[in-house]
């Protein structure tokens, strides 16, 4: 199914936002749309977007590679991104990340064997005074979880597991 078949309304709205002769500008919102469902952009969607905007698949891929919020590979259903920047590091974000990875038995950037959780360090999430914190990409969009502890995090993961099953 192509993007326009899946989200006809959204695609139309996105395209309308930019001048007729500058269709290419719609590529970023379309990439968000493409990754809405599975959390990553499929090769097929890159091709699809390229065709829609009259640019090459390589052009589209080049953007996926540049912007860190686009992913070209599937990850766990919960992509937990922990901010480890300076202000967060001072509030123990590094330790939080290490402990979380250990509890889940993954390396930073890795995914649990059941495919549920991916943990990765990211740059500033702009909630510096509420570290340790993470954002998580879910089907519904981005969620922030602030002032976290390992216990609270694991509890939350557990609840999502139940919700999923």
């Amino acid at each position, binding site marked *: 199914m192509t993007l326009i078949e899946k989200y006809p309304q959204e695609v139309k709205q996105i395209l309308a936002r930019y001048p007729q002769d500058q269709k290419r500008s719609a590529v970023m919102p379309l990439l968000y749309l493409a990754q809405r469902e599975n959390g990553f952009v499929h090769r097929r969607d890159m091709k699809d977007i390229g065709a829609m905007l009259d640019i090459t698949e390589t052009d589209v891929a080049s953007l996926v590679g540049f912007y860190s919020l686009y992913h070209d590979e599937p990850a766990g259903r919960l992509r937990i991104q922990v901010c480890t920047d300076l202000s967060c590091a001072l509030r123990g974000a590094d330790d939080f990340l290490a402990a979380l990875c250990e509890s889940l038995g993954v390396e930073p950037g890795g995914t649990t064997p059941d495919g549920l959780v991916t943990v990765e360090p990211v740059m*500033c999430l702009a*909630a510096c005074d509420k570290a340790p914190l993470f954002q998580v990409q879910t089907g519904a969009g981005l969620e922030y979880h602030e002032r976290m502890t390992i216990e609270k995090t694991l509890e939350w993961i557990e609840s999502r597991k139940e919700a999923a099953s």
Partner: protein
Amino acid sequence: MNFSRSMVLVSSDPESVRRGADEIYALFEKEIAARDMEGEISISRLTDTGRPDAAPIVVIYPEAVVYGPVNAENVKEIVEEHLYKGRVAEHLLAPTRELSGRIGWLKTRKGTLPAEKRIVLRRAGRIDPENIEEYIAEDGYQALAKALTGMKATEVIDVLKESGLQGRGGAGFPTGLKWSFVAGTQSEKKYVVCNADESEPGTFKDRVILEGDPLAIIEAMTIAGYAVGADEGFVYVRGEYKLAQNRLENAVKQAREYGLLGKNIMDTAFSFDIHIHSGAGAYICGEETALLESIEGKRGEPRSRPPYPTTEGLWGKPTLVNNVETLANVPPILLNGGQWYRQFGTPSSPGTKVYTILGNVNFTGLIEVPMGITLREVVNIYGQGMKDGATFKLAQTGGSSGSVIPASLQDTPMDFESFRKAGVSLGSGALLICDENTCVVDLALVLQKFFKFESCGKCTPCRVGTGRIHEILTGIVEGRGTLKDMENLDYLVDSLTRISNCGLGQTASVPINDVLKYFRPELEAHIKLGVCPCGVCPMSAPVKEPAAVA
């Protein structure tokens, strides 16, 4: 323009005037003139002191000393002692007993000096950001109405110029001047772009404005459109700011419904519309030309300038790019006049500044204060002192490209001019306060990791240099540092600043530069003695796996 070495602010709120503030003001003028110091010392008025108990008060910068209550007899002594001899007249100081009140962002607060002054944040947290009615009820859209119905475009720009508003994105470029550049470029199509790609670590002031008062930005952009002759605008919001995006989308929708966006706004000939464009995780897109590239659907790599966006911006059209906080200042300035704005802050940097206070202080959060307060005040007043009675060691301003400010500079007024003179930068408005347990090398390493990750890679010095600095610092914290590393760091800092293409590369070395400048002994201890004085750095190289024996 003359620069003053000191500034005297005399309070002029009704209570102070009642107690003779005007006379005191005149006496200061007279006494200063009597000592031939007019060229060195400026006098201004201060409103809303928040200290009725000590009125009238006199604040003297750069020391930020507050005297009060001051009477006519004290003036001569203050001028003699403080301004002439440079000694604080201790016995005339205002009592400090009320400084311990809880300071919290989103709470109105009284009783501290210099007062927190809310211009940008005046509605955030007080109104429902998703309801345009509440926005309108709180002066919303009055500025636009004033502009559209009673002012020529040039008059709008004149008011901004008069106000002295400077860009709050970090560079401090005069906003009115920028507007006049775009207005002065002939083109059938122009754009107004709001830079809401706030990505400096430690900074989230724009996020609070966008989430708390999104319509202020929409209104300001509309005014900008009218002033520069644009009919379309884009807000480039950081990809991570989903809530801000939703609120902006909602704000645009409501504004359209109320006829405040779209065709013939307020039944005038003026039409303007706004679109929201979400970034996707690239710090570099905060650089305005990279941001424009990104809206155009390209990799966010900065363009080489000239041409500047004011003549060739989005899709080659003249484009006004302004930061969120800058725009948020526009409606109140228009409503109250340029002179009104100048009563806050310092003559060279009028107005207020929103800061995020973070780190080892008792209060962390957001404040909006007049330009020109000092770091010491931030720590002791707004930050309510260092945590656990620790000692202030340094502050890191404005995210990653901000300066590392040592204790010796904590009395420098925080405004563009004074900081520039002191050789440090105000940055984007973050204040990360660190105590003596913070290792500067470790701090620099974390900052450098960020730059290495966020360098777009377009230009050689930044692409390679940020990585090199990171490697050297890694070596030092792992105990592998050599004196040659110091030399190389000096070299890299100098080189990156001089030959990088854009602001990222040119400022990526600011923190490490400050460390080399102010904390050299600490860095040397890591290298020469092999110890981290704060006990933070591991100081031992990661143990390598022994090679398997065949």
